């Protein structure tokens, strides 16, 4: 049954665009996970490995335990239950056992009365290491000694690849990849390691309940998956570990994996006191996974009139020390490698490997970012080789409903690829600015490095797409509970994590519409009061929460009609089912492997100082397929913010490692876009309802990040005439040094 028939518009049930949490956030009252206090609280600190790869010969905690204010110093021996955990594969030790596999890996934890006492005690833990040769080159990882001899990701329906350090190997083969075209273009592309750099570092507080269980208040993206990983390690039943959502200072995928949850709970259960852990910025860089660095080879063949004949790609992503979500990231990178284009003949060869580099997992765009950068550069190369306008070439090959993905999946939902291309291309580009002008309006900005000599202007264009919701047969669902009181008021429970995207307002908007009253409150998210919502990721939370809240509200009204009085119902919503890909061919095994798709096109104007290699992005215009926009301001906010993160990857953001050791773990050395780096963004919302989604919604957070890196670098290529096959683009690359 289609649920898209009832539409929900801004103003319909939401009186203004003002977020429910806006007032407490602007006054400083909103409690983030780092703001929490509890009576009798201790402070936790983590002892971390200075090596990317080493054997642990011994850990001496005697001196640390004797220091003032110290209540506990714990190692792997103190982990009460299962010694390892992981989002999908339990391959990561709670505390390192006999070996460390990445720089910053947790080895021991300390609780003390004062933060400074905890820091000093952590420094006094003596760990004896025997450094080992780190595996740092992903190209060679599959030929080196295994970092995980027990191959934790094998036997899960993936292609069998017995080489060491393979996290997942996959192939997507369709048609005849050797089919010849009139023209072929080829390239090798590289994507650096990006950090989510959410502003609120990992933090939270664990409070023992006095009966053996523990309450953990934490900033996370998925409460129930935190609980389900933590409970076995703490040797507790899931009900004894209650995860409560504390204020989240941004996430972007970086809070999918656990950070301090188990550590704080171990310390709290050991000491019988609440324990708070807050990472500082430097620690945050090793406290979460990052975006996978990637190397991509691509060859595109086309007819003389521009029709794609065959695409062949090899995609290598570096998963770092532990699996996290690498198996899904490589599947996404391969699934969307070709871009939103129809091609009959495809061969994509993907490989995710273990190394001793920082672990990688989910970040906004999730594999599609890396693939889009390569695929769109190829489309521009092809346009140049064929002397066809690059927008026309994209229109000619655009994948639309009824067309087929390289996995054999037929596009059944909405995918207005041509529409977003046409509308982005039609956005008026600002006129070139006259010289002389203020330094701040030139590449180099307030550094006052040029008066305009050597400055060239370029215009770039790109298209990107990605899936919405979880894929490949994952049982993806969301729960909501609705409590109707006799006085007509309602309380909604849903564990959907509001990470800043505003899903709380979506929930209230849906509940008010469905229940026909404004007297609705949203309870804070907790595993103690409602079932799983799934993760605030994969552009799924608006769709899934809207579906769950709609279902629960309607069930509650039915129940009230039947029984009268107060009612309390909980309902689960599932999106259309997906199925795994064939491990040998990458083709669908039934129905679809991905639930739905969203596409965005972007046009960018940039200026480049070709002598100094400095850049200024002048203007960005984008048209994005957003389904029915429930809240226009929030959608624009996702587009503008997602674009900024893509700009960061294009121009400045990269975690730099030497022998696996991070060299720039600070905001002084890892740069993210400032107000001066971000140009105005014009957003044209292409509203075509998604037939399978409640109210016809689509997730909107990721497409702008997928497309913007590619579009910005296209503008730099146009300005410089250089290939610029690696991001972030460095001044040396632009100046040709």
């Amino acid at each position: 049954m289609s649920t898209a028939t009832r539409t929900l518009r801004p103003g319909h049930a939401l009186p203004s665009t003002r977020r429910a949490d806006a007032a407490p956030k602007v006054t400083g009252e909103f409690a983030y996970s780092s703001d929490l206090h509890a009576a009798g609280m201790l402070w936790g600190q983590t002892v971390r490995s200075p090596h990317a790869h080493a054997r642990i010969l011994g850990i001496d905690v005697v001196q640390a335990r004797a220091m003032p204010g110290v209540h506990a110093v714990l190692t792997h021996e103190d982990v009460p239950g299962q010694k390892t955990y992981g989002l999908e594969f339990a391959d990561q030790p709670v505390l390192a056992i006999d070996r460390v596999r990445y720089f910053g890996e947790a080895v021991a934890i300390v609780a003390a009365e004062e933060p400074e006492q905890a820091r000093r005690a952590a420094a006094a833990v003596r760990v004896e290491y025997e450094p080992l040769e780190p595996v740092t080159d992903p190209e060679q990882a599959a030929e080196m000694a295994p970092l995980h001899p027990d191959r934790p990701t094998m036997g899960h329906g993936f292609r069998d690849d017995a080489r060491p350090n393979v996290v997942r190997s996959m192939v997507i083969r369709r048609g005849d990849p050797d089919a010849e075209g009139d023209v072929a273009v080829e390239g090798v592309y590289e994507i650096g390691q990006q950090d989510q750099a959410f502003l609120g570092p990992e933090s939270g507080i664990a409070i023992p309940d006095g009966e053996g269980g523990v309450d953990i208040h934490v900033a996370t993206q998925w409460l129930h998956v935190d609980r389900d990983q933590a409970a076995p390690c703490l040797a507790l039943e899931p009900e004894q570990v209650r995860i409560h959502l504390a204020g989240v200072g941004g996430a972007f995928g970086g809070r999918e994996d656990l950070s301090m949850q188990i550590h704080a709970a171990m310390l709290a259960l050991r000491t019988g006191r609440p324990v708070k852990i807050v990472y500082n910025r430097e620690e945050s860089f090793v406290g979460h996974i990052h975006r996978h660095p990637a190397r991509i080879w691509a060859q595109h063949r086309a007819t003389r009139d521009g029709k794609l004949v065959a695409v062949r790609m090899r995609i290598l992503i570096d998963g770092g020390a532990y699996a996290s979500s690498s198996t899904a990231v490589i599947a996404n990178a391969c699934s969307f490698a070709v871009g939103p284009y129809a091609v009959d003949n495809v061969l994509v060869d993907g490989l995710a490997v273990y190394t001793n580099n920082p672990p990688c997992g989910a970040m906004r765009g999730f594999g599609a970012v890396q693939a889009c950068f390569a695929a769109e550069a190829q489309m521009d190369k092809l346009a140049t080789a064929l002397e066809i306008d690059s927008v026309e070439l994209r229109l000619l090959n655009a994948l639309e409903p009824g067309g087929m993905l390289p996995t054999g999946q037929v596009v059944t939902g909405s995918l207005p690829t041509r529409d977003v291309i046409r509308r982005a291309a039609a956005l008026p580009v600002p006129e070139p600015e006259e010289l002389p002008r203020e330094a701040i309006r030139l590449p180099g900005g307030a550094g006052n490095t040029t008066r305009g000599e050597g400055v060239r202007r370029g215009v770039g264009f790109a298209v990107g797409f990605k899936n919405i919701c979880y894929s490949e047969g994952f049982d993806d669902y969301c729960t909501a509970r609705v409590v109707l009181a006799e006085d007509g008021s309602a309380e909604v429970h849903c564990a959907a994590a509001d990470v800043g995207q505003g899903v709380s307002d979506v929930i209230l908007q849906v509940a008010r519409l469905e229940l026909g009253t404004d007297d609705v409150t949203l309870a804070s998210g907790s595993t103690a009061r409602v079932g799983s919502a799934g993760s605030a990721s994969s552009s799924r939370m608006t769709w899934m929460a809207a579906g769950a809240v709609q279902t629960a509200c309607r069930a509650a009204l039915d129940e009230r009609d039947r029984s009268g009085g107060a009612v309390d119902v909980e309902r689960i919503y599932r999106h259309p089912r997906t199925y795994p890909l064939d491990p040998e061919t990458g083709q669908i095994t039934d129905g679809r492997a991905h639930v739905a798709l969203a596409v965005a096109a972007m046009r960018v104007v940039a200026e480049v100082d070709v002598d100094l290699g400095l850049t200024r992005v002048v203007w960005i215009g984008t048209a994005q397929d957003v389904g029915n926009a429930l809240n226009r301001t929030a959608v624009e906010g996702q587009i503008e913010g997602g674009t900024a993160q893509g700009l960061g990857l294009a121009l400045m953001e990269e975690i730099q490692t030497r022998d696996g050791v991070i060299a720039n773990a600070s905001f002084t050395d890892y740069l993210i876009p400032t107000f001066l780096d971000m140009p105005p963004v014009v957003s044209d919302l292409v509203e075509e309802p998604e037939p399978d989604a409640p109210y016809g919604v689509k997730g909107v957070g990721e497409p702008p990040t997928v497309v913007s890196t590619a579009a910005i670098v296209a503008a730099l290529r146009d300005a410089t005439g250089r290939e610029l096959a690696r991001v972030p683009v460095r001044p040396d690359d632009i100046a040709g040094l």
Partner: protein
Amino acid sequence: MRVSITVNGEVREAEVWAGESLLTTLRDRLDLPGSKNACEQGECGSCSVLLDDELVCSCLVLAAQADGHEVATVEGLADDGSLHPVQDAFAATGAVQCGFCTPGFVVAAADLLRRVPDPSDDEIREALSGNLCRCTGYQKILDAVHLAVER
């Protein structure tokens, strides 16, 4: 050591250690967690406060340096429960997403408008370039500052 700081017009005393930042004192000793700790290097502006009417990163100021001085934090911006025009504009334009940078931004933006009552886009961008936001891409923050001027 003991310090006495006038915070949001009220004299507050705290026992601090010699190396402690003003940010830590505000957050952990004076129960004013509105100022945020996101980098502790003066790069992100999340901890912005006014020290004797001068915009500073409170992570870079020692609590001891603030002894005997006046500090204004985000908690002091609203007047008797009614939002400061900058706070109200941030809420109205969608300039708030996760909100972790917001306290620093509203303190810095209010300071800008005190000095420059009607700033241009470029003046806003330059004045607030010391405050990092990871969610919004800054556009709606620009809108918010202009809206605050109108009000």
